[in-house]
């Protein structure tokens, strides 16, 4: 991210304590953005109630460097977004044991390269002897099965990577 700006309501502030508090809140949020983002920002601007805070960091690449560097600002995000949108994980809804096939030795529900439709069963998670079907929540192509047959998975763990459905691919 290169610039983040959040605009609060424009009530003006009264007195120093108020200013101190507003500035403190802005600072904490800027700090949190800087410290807790998986990608370190180049700069952040945050303003609210007439107080504006902007900060930039030195070790960031071009974004902070201004006009001389022609940043391909249109293309890069679009590539990234496409790439982000093009694959998505299917995650475990429950903790349990992951099975690719209805029973030992049987054909897997899906294999890499298969096209799947929304609602199609792609695996089983066994929890407490209960066989819970894992269903696709959207159409797509199976790019990768991330968990081996019979392996334990936790809640939220990615099971499969899906790509765009055949028809939707560019």
């Amino acid at each position: 991210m290169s610039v983040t700006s959040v605009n609060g309501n424009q009530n003006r502030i009264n007195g120093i304590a108020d200013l101190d508090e507003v500035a403190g809140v802005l600072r904490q949020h800027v700090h949190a953005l800087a410290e807790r983002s998986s990608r370190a920002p180049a700069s952040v601007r945050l303003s609210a109630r007439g107080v504006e805070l902007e900060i930039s960091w030195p070790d960031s690449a071009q974004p902070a460097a201004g006009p001389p560097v022609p940043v391909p600002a249109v293309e890069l995000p679009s590539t990234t977004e496409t790439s982000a949108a093009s694959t998505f994980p299917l995650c475990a809804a429950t903790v349990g044991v992951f099975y690719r096939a209805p029973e030992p030795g049987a054909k897997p529900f899906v294999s890499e390269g298969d096209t799947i439709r929304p609602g199609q069963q792609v695996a089983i998670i066994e929890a407490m002897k209960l066989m819970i079907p894992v269903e696709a929540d959207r159409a797509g192509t199976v790019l990768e099965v991330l968990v081996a047959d019979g392996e334990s998975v936790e809640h939220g763990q990615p099971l499969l990577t899906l790509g765009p459905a055949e028809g939707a691919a560019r």
Partner: protein
Amino acid sequence: MISKVLIANRGEIALRIARTCREAGVATVAAHSAEDRDSAVVRFADESVQIGPGPAKSSYLSIPAVVEAARARGADAIHPGYGFLSENADFAEVCEAEGLTFIGPSARVMNLLGDKSSARAIMLDAGLPLLPGSRDALTSAQEAKELADEIGYPVIIKAVAGGGGRGMAVVRDPADFDRAYATTRANAQAVFRDGRLYVERYLDSARHVEIQVLGDGHGDVVHLGARDCSLQRRHQKLVEESPAPRLDPRIVAEMGEAAVRGARAVGYTGAGTFEFLVDGAGRFYFMEVNCRLQVEHPVTEMVTGIDLVREQLRVAAGEPLGFTQDEVRHRGVAIECRVNAEDPARDFAPTPGTLTRCVLPGGAFVRVDTHVEHGYRIPALYDSLLAKLIVWAPDRDAAIAKMRRVLAETEIRGAGVSTTAEFLAGLLDHPRFRAAEHDTALIGSLTVPA
């Protein structure tokens, strides 16, 4: 031998359990919800496993998720902490069936004591004093009313499946009885799926005093003295101390013996708490047994030097207790204050938010049990306990002075976050608390709307 414990809880108690496990050389698995994935216990434990989304129903309260997680990580025991699944006999039964050691009493004992009606009957038979009331569950409103008239008002109607302050109604006027009975029954049916009720005499001004017991599987049961938890707000304890102040040690000894007798009668193993009401004349009456570690267990640890979780592990592993009743030595006074993320000015409404400042107290004879730190986000999904502050001193006045210092030192702040720290400081200054003349009605009398 227990080699790996799955901790099926969150917050301060999950971390507290993990700490003792680490010290005992036992590996830990933190079972956590998606909401708690960045929590202190997840960082501290040897392993972690996400068992479900934020809501406790699908994570901390999900028996299949917890059991699967334990199996997946090869844990041989499960510590349920307090709350959540800790007093769920079904869960204990599933653990037993799955070959997992449930760290707590057996499912059989939990069933017997979880049913307040059977618990009353067992304790009555074991010779514990009970308030006048029904021995068994009532069968009709008619029978209930007749019993109430016989006992004399005020009476309290309680759900057999209730506990911890839920599912009860006080009736002062016989004319109100039938309506209160019907309402409590409907509530009990809805909340506990068990509409059975019982009735007993209600004490208006009583102290809540409880006895900590520990039983091993070798027939040994000991008690670790009393805790006074009379400072309650709507049946939620706020301040706890050990020993019980202004209570004749001979009465405490009698209560201890009664609790041990009751625990033996039911075959209790592990850590448990016998709750009693004590009236102004020093008479005590058995209320219920909590089949788990209590939130307030640290005050007992501070005065006895005994780590209760360490003893729970020992007992769960089939070992005998690390000491005998004669070896239990009490020293000084310990007080605990629960700092909650609540706003006393808005009827103790929870105040979730992110901590932008978090300075916890320290120094001599101060213990802090918490999972929060600078930058911690208080989730709106769970209970509001932020930190337990526990102090020890040679005498009660010194302990109160220390707690006042400790509360003054505590700074927990964040946008929208309030805590009960200041309210607690005010409570400690109340003349009736200073004089140890407080009872369970004190806070109610302070916080009733003007």
